[in-house]
């Protein structure tokens, strides 16, 4: 009998505010250690937290985007544990009453299948600092620049049934926080982190015991860690063993999960309402103000792209996966054929970026240049093949579309008489092939087209070459 995997994800999204959640220290990444600290985030006696309005607004934005209940009154709680990168001895979080309640996210799977994944809640909390273990003998170095950075922890329902679904959900959420501009989504720097709760059960049976896998800082690691965990748990269950509820760490180098030495009493956090903070009350006016600033969200944009540019669901999905890419596409498609623009953005542009290892955010070709290039194909100044040559030039060395076309003499030959003259020369020079063609060897048309294109250095309009050649060859 088969096993069914049950997956729920907890995502920590660092909110891209200018300052920390409870003090006016900057949140910029990469500063000298402990230069972004103050008495509040260092937990000096008597220092008191004051909540950052921008962190609240960003939580509201996420709540609105996933159609969630927004709790008009939410409460901050202390989660107590001891670790040197947590100076207060507790983390300020939200426990019983989070700011964002139940919502959902619709993810697109292969073959156009959609799945609704429930979001249990999202709550505001503060990040911890960083411990550096390598540099000192017998001691650990503590950098508290990150301590107090605002986090939104987004907890899903255990609704996913495969690693593919989990990755699709995480990608969707990743795109969403970036669309909303609430998180920079940088997984390497830890701005967008994911823990996965994974368990197995017989289909239809009650949930099995789960393992929580930490340290999943890429989509690929999430997928691989879940796959590893499925095999591990299945082997235990099928040999009559029991799964231990525990926290496991994914080790990317060995592609395995392993048990973290469980901190004694690790789960006894003794939450209680933080007496330093009053209840957070969301006024309708604040919620409406955030609603007014929401951008067009991925699902709406995808539907519009399909409608407005006559794109397939797949193409529209690829082009709306990120806000920068979607904006780029729309700039390219302005005034040219939507499908042709989509082919250029998805094929040539993304292909070149991928090959060069560059993100779309750092794309060396401005969308306006790509639009002009596509326009030059449409107005028959150049052929699609020549356009690829121009694109390469612009991508790797820069320059202007029209200037490159002119300086290299790439302008397409559309003069029928000029093409006819070239055709005539080629046909006259190859009498045997011409005779064979007339005798029924249709495939030889390709040979002639190739010869003419070669003679024109690729500049002859291919449609015209075809038509004129056929006429000339049949004429004899």
């Amino acid at each position, binding site marked *: 009998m088969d096993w069914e995997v049950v997956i729920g994800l907890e995502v920590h999204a660092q909110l891209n505010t200018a300052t920390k959640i409870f003090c006016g220290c900057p949140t910029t990444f990469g500063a000298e*250690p402990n230069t972004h600290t103050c008495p509040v985030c260092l937990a*000096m006696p008597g220092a008191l937290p004051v*909540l950052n309005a921008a962190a*609240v607004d960003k939580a509201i934005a996420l709540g609105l985007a996933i159609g969630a209940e927004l709790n008009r009154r939410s409460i901050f709680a202390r989660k107590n544990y001891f670790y040197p990168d947590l100076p207060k001895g507790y983390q300020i979080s939200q426990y019983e009453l989070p700011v964002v309640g139940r919502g959902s996210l619709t993810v697109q799977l292969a073959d156009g299948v959609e799945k609704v994944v429930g979001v249990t809640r999202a709550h505001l909390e503060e990040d911890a600092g960083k411990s550096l273990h390598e540099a*000192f003998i017998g001691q650990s170095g503590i950098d508290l620049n990150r301590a107090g950075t605002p986090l939104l922890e987004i907890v899903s329902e255990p609704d996913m049934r495969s690693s593919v679904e989990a990755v699709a959900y995480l990608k969707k959420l990743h795109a969403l926080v970036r669309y909303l501009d609430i998180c920079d989504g940088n997984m390497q720097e830890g701005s967008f982190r994911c823990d996965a709760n994974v368990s197995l059960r017989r289909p239809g049976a009650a949930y099995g015991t789960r393992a929580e896998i930490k340290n999943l800082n890429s989509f690929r690691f999430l997928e691989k860690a879940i796959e590893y965990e499925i095999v591990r748990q299945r082997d235990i269950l099928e040999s009559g063993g029991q799964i231990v509820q525990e926290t496991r760490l994914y080790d990317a180098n060995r592609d395995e999960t392993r048990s*973290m030495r469980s901190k004694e009493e690790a789960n006894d956090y003794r939450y209680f309402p933080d007496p330093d903070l009053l*209840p957070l009350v969301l006024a309708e006016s604040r919620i409406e103000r955030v609603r007014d600033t929401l951008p067009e969200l991925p699902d709406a944009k995808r539907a519009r792209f399909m409608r407005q540019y006559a794109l397939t669901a797949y193409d529209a999905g690829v082009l709306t996966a990120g806000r920068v890419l979607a904006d780029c596409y729309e700039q390219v498609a302005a005034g040219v054929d939507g499908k042709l623009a989509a082919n250029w953005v998805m094929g040539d542009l993304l292909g070149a970026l991928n090959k060069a290892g560059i993100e779309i955010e750092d794309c060396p070709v401005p969308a306006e240049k790509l639009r002009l290039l596509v326009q030059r194909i449409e107005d028959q100044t150049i052929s699609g093949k020549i356009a690829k040559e121009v694109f390469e030039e612009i991508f790797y060395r820069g320059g202007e579309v029209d200037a490159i076309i002119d300086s290299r003499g790439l302008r397409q030959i559309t003069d029928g008489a000029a093409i006819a003259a070239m055709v005539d020369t080629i046909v006259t020079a190859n009498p045997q092939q011409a005779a064979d063609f007339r005798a029924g060897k249709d495939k030889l048309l390709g040979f002639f087209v190739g010869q003419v294109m070669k003679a024109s250095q690729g500049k002859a309009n291919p449609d015209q070459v075809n038509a004129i050649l056929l006429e000339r060859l049949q004429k004899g």
Partner: protein
Amino acid sequence: MAFDQDSVRRTAHLARIALPPTEIPAVADQLERIMELVEELRAIGTTGVPTMAHPLDLDQPLRPDTVGNHDQREVLMASAPAADHGLFLVPKVIE
């Protein structure tokens, strides 16, 4: 609810309080009495009464998201027992 000596030891550990074994019976007794008080409170009907998160009937004020703090590392680190290269040093922590 009985607050036995094991519960005292566990609670002391969670709070990182070094409790001499000789004091455990007395602390157990004190905590037991606190728990009795809690039991008394629990007996009061509170159905329909919203949870009170704070004794002050006020809302959380919000702070504008503007940087107001500048680097004061030298001053703030002055009282640290050990520091090096701008890092606070603590006894080795290994996960």
